[in-house]
């Protein structure tokens, strides 16, 4: 323990050098900027910066990358909250409550709880990375495909809480997402599915295209068609420029719970950052004392998922730094960056290159502080973006959408999909179909399918393997509880009520 503290202090000595602070600042700014753009994530940015950083000392380069990694998460929540336009899959859940808050004039509070929550969870995640990494990393070897499958099933229960007013419409959205997710080459067998003979569909429909189309394009079409000629502008700061005492009271627990959910799942090789946000949103909604506020701008629904998202990002570094295992695209690019400097992450790196490693970890702490300092004063400015005349906001949204969609692979098919799925997003708004279940289906469907089929392939078709490990059995049991408990509680309460009467 003392040893770790000493090393960490040495790391801070590196991270706090003026030149490295400068690189951290550059990374944070760049990260925030790309986080705002849909489809342009930290993985892509770091990949493109790799050749540039050949001129820089490794410490400085990684400190900048750390800034990009965390900065993108801070930036990603801004567009979700203010414009209902999540740029990355990890901020889909933030948009649900966050954008409602912004419409009620509480955008500033939503941005603030998201920034502070990101800071709290990012710091907790980094602390866990510092002190628990080798232990947590062992999880990677314990989790098998059946355990991942159970985790996906548990995450699927989050659909139940974003269902909207009608089960039939909610499930329709979910199955629409599942259906889109099957398009493309099946990785397990190499067979093409639902591609209708087009090469462009062989890799499936890109998640960014669906995200941008359903949210940004669908919303633009809908608002354009329904704007009342006299609609008054919502004054964006109606609900105050800052979090109220009650906001704080309602936020701190979701921050901690989000961090607790996000970090371990993020540190699993197939965990990712989306699953924790789904789980956190479900947990907050189930635990809330005011569940009726969910769907109308409940601050817990922003605080929890944002914290989970950031803690998961710290978690991703666990298998990378301790085992040399890249679990996400971002981690894979960071691994390539290490290799560019002739370094190999893993247990040996702690021995051979402690300065770099502890400098990197220290810079994660520093980056979080920089981002908090950058973002809190910006909250007021971001919110005032909503004062831009409506034609220009939506005109700008469409250009951003084009950047995200066309920038992916300059594919005409993607533009066609944007138009088509955008129209579907419009129809969904007109007839009150929820959007979130479709995205959950699209994100989780293919992952769940792959894990299920891997589990069955390894077990040679024995389905009992799905409950064959303690982890899988426990997770499935929790999933069953999440689905059926509210039902029983309601019955029980009803019975109590009757007996009283």
């Amino acid at each position, binding site marked *: 323990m003392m040893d770790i503290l000493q090393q960490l202090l040495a790391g801070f000595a590196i991270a706090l050098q003026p030149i490295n602070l400068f690189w951290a600042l550059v990374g944070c700014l760049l990260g925030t900027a790309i986080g705002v753009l849909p489809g342009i994530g930290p993985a892509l940015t770091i*990949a493109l910066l*790799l050749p540039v950083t050949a001129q820089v000392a490794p410490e400085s380069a990684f400190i900048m990358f750390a800034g990009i990694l965390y900065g993108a998460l801070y930036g990603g929540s801004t567009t979700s909250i203010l414009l209902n336009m999540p740029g990355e899959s990890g901020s889909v859940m933030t948009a649900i409550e966050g954008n409602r808050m912004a419409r009620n004039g509480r955008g500033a509070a939503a941005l603030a709880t998201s920034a502070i929550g990101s800071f709290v969870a990012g710091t907790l995640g980094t602390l866990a990375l510092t002190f628990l990494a080798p232990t947590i990393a062992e999880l990677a*070897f314990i989790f098998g495909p059946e355990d991942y499958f159970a985790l996906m099933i548990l995450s699927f229960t989050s659909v139940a809480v974003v269902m909207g007013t009608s089960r039939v419409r909610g499930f329709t959205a979910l199955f629409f997402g599942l259906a889109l997710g099957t398009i493309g080459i099946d990785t397990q067998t190499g067979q093409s599915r639902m591609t209708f003979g087009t090469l462009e569909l062989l890799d499936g429909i890109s998640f960014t295209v669906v995200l941008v189309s359903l949210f940004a394009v669908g919303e633009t079409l809908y608002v354009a068609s329904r704007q009342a000629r006299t609609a008054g502008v919502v004054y964006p700061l109606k609900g105050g420029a800052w979090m109220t005492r009650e906001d704080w009271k309602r936020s701190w627990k979701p921050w901690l719970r989000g961090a607790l959910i996000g970090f371990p799942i993020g540190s699993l*090789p197939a965990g990712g950052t989306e699953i924790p946000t789904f789980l956190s949103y479900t947990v907050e909604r189930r635990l809330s004392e005011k569940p009726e506020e969910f769907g109308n701008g409940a601050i817990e629904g922003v605080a929890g998922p944002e914290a989970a998202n950031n803690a998961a990002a710290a978690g991703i570094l666990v*298998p990378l730094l301790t085992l040399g295992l890249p679990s996400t695209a971002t981690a*894979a690019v960071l691994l390539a960056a290490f290799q560019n400097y002739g370094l190999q992450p893993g247990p040996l790196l702690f021995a051979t290159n402690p300065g770099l490693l502890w400098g990197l970890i220290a810079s994660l702490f520093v980056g979080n502080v920089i981002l908090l300092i950058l973002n809190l004063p910006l909250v007021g400015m971001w919110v005032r973006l909503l004062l831009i005349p409506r034609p220009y906001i939506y005109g700008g949204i469409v250009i951003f959408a084009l950047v995200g969609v066309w920038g992916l692979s300059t594919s005409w098919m993607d533009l066609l999909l944007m138009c088509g799925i955008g129209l579907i997003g419009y129809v969904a708004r007109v007839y009150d179909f929820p959007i979130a279940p479709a995205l959950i289906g699209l994100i989780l469907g293919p992952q769940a399918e*792959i894990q299920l089929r891997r589990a069955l392939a390894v077990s040679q078709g024995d389905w009992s393997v799905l409950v064959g490990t303690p982890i899988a059995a426990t997770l499935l049991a929790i999933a069953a509880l999440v689905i059926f408990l509210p039902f029983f509680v309601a019955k029980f309460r009803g019975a109590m009520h009757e007996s009283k009467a």
Partner: protein
Amino acid sequence: MLKRSFLTGVIALAFSAGLAAAEPAKVLIPANPGGGWDGAGRETMAAFNKSGVFTDGVSFTNKGGAAGTIGLAEFVRTAEGDDNALLVTGVIMVGGAISNKTPVSLDNTTPLARMTNEYNAIAVPADSAIKTPQDFLAALKADPGALSVGGGSAGGVDHVLLALLAKQAGAPVDKINFVSFSGGEILASLGGGKIKAAISGASEFRDFAKSGRIRIIAVTGPNRVEGLDVPTLKETGIPIEIGNWRGFVGAPGMSEAGRKTWLDRFEKLHASDAWKETLKAHGWEDAYLAGDEFKAFIKAEESNWTAALKDVGILK
């Protein structure tokens, strides 16, 4: 009036600035930024610049999808006769063009040079009873379904290697249990003993093997891999050599002069120190093969892959 002409001026200025940008070598990368082909393309062009062989600048276009065949189709359609257009290519594209039955293939392009190769390795969990390639073949023959083997995507190099090994062992190729993975998950699954064996890039396994959780039993190149005390398949009497090679092709209808110029440049690059540093930094094996020999090599790969993809059931 003044305002109107000012605004028109802004529009004109915005566009003319873009047109002024010069555009020398145009490299089409048939994958999204950040992947293996992207690195190969950008790093090779950087080495060109560093070595001073070709310093006129480069513009990159990423056009990913369908194992690189979308980029290939785009290249054949748009770059016709352009002496400065290059396409990054590799074995994945050869396989992709066959299994996706694309109307265009590498035959439509002008092969220039194969530059790198990344050979595969076969690994097992550290406590596995399989110690040698022969043990592996025996296990495969005994019960192919029970030997779950992880690898990259189905129809890729890893899958084809497993099929070749099954054939070698005399096991039914349609019974092999290939489990596809992406990213670092395969290492965790192998290290945790969830799968019985795995096939992946040699350098990926080499670094992870240092942790003592997995054991590499063979590599698939013509020579042993530096820093690895592991035999090649050929050494142990299994006549299989397979790897993930990458290279460059020119446009269809490239002029003879243009082809000579680029062949000359690739030769100079291959001899330069900058290139050797690049190879070392990325753990790539030198696999330089240029001009007509490269062309013949692509032909041979195409027929090998057609046979192999039929064997694994991807091609009907």
